[in-house]
């Protein structure tokens, strides 16, 4: 879902850059001097894992592929603010070094595929987890948040492209959302499997202070 240069008008990509910078600035402020020694290796591992996972396109339907985004997974383990910094780093490296996503559109890509998951998705996860009491709430909460993060990202992407005057919203939004309702299932499945694996092998790693 990486938006290339050219899909967004100057007004739209400037707004998205401003939004991304504002949220990231707040995330850095909330993270700075608060990470513990135990967070450090997890930041490295998650950044590496999410980059690698985003390379793994899986066929979904009718000659279309999808890959996971990872924002909800990162936020569930690290917390929303440090996860936001990690996701932004992934998209910066992809855009600058791998031509995956544009530079003008980097703010939009960070916002859509990163921050919607790390902040919005984390909030959804946290809310569901607190409604369903006990440990059993964890996995449904992750699955729903991960799926919704992908669907909301596709909606945001559609709105930005439509606002840029490229294509009417009535055309792009249903097409994007319907295909990402399927792609979101990958996100939900991988996020649940990774957290289940950590819970089974190193449950203490899920007890990091959420920042």
């Amino acid at each position, binding site marked *: 879902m990486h938006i*290339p240069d050219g899909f967004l008008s100057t007004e739209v990509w400037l707004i998205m850059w401003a939004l991304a910078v504002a949220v990231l600035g707040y995330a850095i402020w909330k993270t700075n001097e608060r990470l513990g020694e135990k967070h450090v290796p997890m930041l*490295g591992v998650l950044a590496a894992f999410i*980059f690698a996972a985003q390379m793994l396109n899986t066929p979904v339907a009718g000659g279309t592929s999808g890959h996971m985004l990872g924002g909800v997974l990162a936020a569930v383990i690290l917390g929303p603010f440090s996860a936001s910094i990690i996701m932004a780093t992934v998209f910066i490296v992809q855009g600058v070094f791998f031509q995956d996503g544009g530079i003008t559109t980097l703010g939009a890509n960070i916002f859509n595929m990163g921050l919607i998951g790390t902040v919005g998705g984390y909030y959804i996860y946290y809310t569901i987890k607190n409604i369903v009491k006990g440990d059993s709430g964890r996995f449904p909460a992750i699955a729903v948040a991960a799926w919704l993060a992908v669907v909301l990202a596709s909606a945001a992407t559609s709105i930005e492209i439509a606002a840029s005057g490229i294509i009417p919203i009535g055309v792009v939004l249903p097409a994007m959302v319907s295909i990402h309702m399927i792609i979101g299932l990958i996100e939900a499945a991988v996020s649940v499997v990774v957290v289940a694996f950590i819970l089974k092998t190193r449950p203490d790693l899920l007890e990091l202070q959420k920042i």
Partner: protein
Amino acid sequence: MRDNYWIFGLVVALIMAAVISLYASPDPDGLERVAEDKGFLEHGEGHEVMESPMPDYIIPGIENEVLSASLAGVTGTLMLFGAGILLGKAFRGGTNNAT
């Protein structure tokens, strides 16, 4: 970094980027598919602001396509691991609030 689970995590990520990625679907992703179907794909062509050193996850100049793709994946994975560690150290608290 004394707790060395990170080695396992990094190895898993490297295997994904270097080996499993070779079997990834080459089909367009959701946005590319919609752009193609709805006829706005050309808006994204020729507007690149900069040229990336490893466009589309290959290293130009390496003839062997498999090696080129694997090395690009490994490079990116190591870059992100390094960036994550550096960011973690940069945002680490002082001795008072380190937990």
